[in-house]
């Protein structure tokens, strides 16, 4: 019983991380129809930046949360540059978009190897969250609970942004009908840059928040990318609630699969996605078939 409860908490924590990663992916996919195959790389890049800032490799040791914000902002700017100078030139050309995003992913992977080497880098759990909560026989690390809280807070923040602000209304309009949004005077191309930067920043944020749990290592990028994909296919692209539900489901399947069916863990991970594709191709909460 204890085992299953612990597994449940770990699943929700991982689901929270996945949500931070997949929310941006889903928005980019939903609004821009771009398969952003750099998303896992942005996650890894954020984690490396965070590790550098926290670990004091630049001779100044930053506070974990300050480092998180700086690294996320840096990656967001990087994302905006990719969108503005590369993807902007390739509207409606999925082949070229795949080539460019994969090319950048290769470059980031090699850059990571060059700067940070091949060994995993562990990031210390931020001060104040190193302890444990004891509930009877159960022991929960504070940090994992904090990740859940952060994911929920970001989810609420994103929901407020999308549902309650003018910018959010414009983004939703762009997701639902980009042509019509243009006609009524929304500058969709500007939205693209904003959404891409936001998605990149969120992915980096997820990378740093996840670093004390997952650590950072080469190959993390292409490990996270398929997970983000599965979440988005499961939940439906362009849907926030879809990303949230999808992330939690995948978080559970990932952790329980690893623990109970280690030999088939990847198979069970992708199985629900296949079932959803066959029965409801637009995803659980999606509005359109990609």
């Amino acid at each position, binding site marked *: 019983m204890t085992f299953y409860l612990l597994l449940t908490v770990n699943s929700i924590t991982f689901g929270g991380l996945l949500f931070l990663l997949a929310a941006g992916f889903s928005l980019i996919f939903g609004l821009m129809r771009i398969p952003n195959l750099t998303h896992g790389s942005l996650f890894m890049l954020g984690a490396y930046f965070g590790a550098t800032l926290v670990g004091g490799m630049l001779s100044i040791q930053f506070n974990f949360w300050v480092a998180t914000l700086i690294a996320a902002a840096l990656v967001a700017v990087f994302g905006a540059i990719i969108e503005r100078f590369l993807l902007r030139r390739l509207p409606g050309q999925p082949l070229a978009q795949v080539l460019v995003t*994969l090319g950048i992913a290769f470059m980031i992977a090699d*850059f990571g190897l060059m700067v940070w080497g091949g060994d995993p880098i562990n990031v210390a759990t931020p001060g104040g969250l190193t302890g444990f909560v004891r509930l009877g026989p159960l022991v929960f690390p504070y940090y994992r609970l904090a990740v859940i809280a952060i994911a929920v807070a970001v989810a609420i923040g994103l929901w407020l942004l999308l549902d309650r602000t003018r910018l959010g209304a414009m983004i939703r309009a762009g997701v639902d009908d980009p042509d019509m949004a243009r006609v009524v005077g929304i500058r969709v191309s500007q939205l693209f840059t904003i959404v891409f930067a936001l998605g990149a920043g969120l992915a980096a944020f997820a990378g740093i928040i996840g670093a004390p749990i997952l650590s950072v290592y080469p190959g993390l990028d292409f490990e996270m990318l398929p997970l983000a994909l599965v979440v988005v296919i499961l939940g439906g692209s362009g849907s926030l609630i879809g990303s949230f539900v999808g992330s939690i489901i995948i978080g559970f399947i990932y952790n329980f699969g690893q623990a109970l069916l280690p030999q088939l863990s990847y198979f069970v991970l*992708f199985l629900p996605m296949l079932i959803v594709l066959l029965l409801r191709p637009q995803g659980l909460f999606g509005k359109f078939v990609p």
Partner: protein
Amino acid sequence: MSGRVVALALAGAALVTLPYWIQGSYYINVSSQILFYAIFALGLNVLAGYGGLVSLGHAGLLGIVAYAVAYTLQAGLGHTIAILAALVIGLASMAVYAVLSLRATGIGFIMITLALGEIIWGLAYRWISITNGDNGINVRTRPEPFDLSLASPIAFYYACLIVFLVSLAMVTVFVRSPLGAALMGTRDQPRRMNALGYHVWAIRFWACIFSGLLTAISGILFVYYNQFISPQALDLTSSAEVLLMVIAGGAGSLLGPAVGAALVVVVKSVVSGFIERWNMLLGAIFVVIVIFMPEGLVPGTVRLWRLAWRKASAHASHETEPAASEAEAKQ
């Protein structure tokens, strides 16, 4: 047109005589790799280039075929049975793959195929009792068709070359066939094709099967070349690499995938000996190709060549205008 024939004849002659002017088995092995990766890329090009269906899971299919060969041989059966079994299993897997992924088109297709590729990789990686996990399976011998040993690099190179030329001919025939034309129709105007009475799904399905056949052929060469198969050959990076070969060389052109395969294999195996950061170089090459030749190297070069030629001829005709007008006057 005659220039094209000459160029193709020269390229063919170069390929046939390659072992005589390239020294060292290392470079001959690199050439064999280019050839079977070119077949792999040709197969993907049928879908990605002519069908507009970008598959990011083809390495998974290649892996299934390679594992089928290795597993059959390990079970003590002969090469003929292994190759036949691999072809059948490869085509059957492709049929399942097609039925699942043809639920969507466009970006949806990319994502489904990526996920399918990852499932296959995950099975190969984790289902250790069948696949031996990361340790992979060894293939001890190469087949001996007509009692010719393929053990030496040169013999294997010629085997690859023959299979490559046959595959290229198959793709050429396919592209020029009614089915090929219909496939390009479903890429450009799926709704119109549907309205014209074509069964869009069936056309795409058979294109997938044809692509699967080429993938299976290259998978068999792949496993006999390496004499080893491990999950690494199936991962997302491998799927991405072959897709990049297709797009970089020129999706929807006959020779583009082969050029792309040469580019990627040369950077991976030759340039990597001189430049430590070859992955970054490869990534940079892809980005540069997209910026300057978004249609790919082969169509892009042809376009630039024609442009330059037209400019040169326009320039030349400008200079010789009096002579030309005189000639016209005489006529």
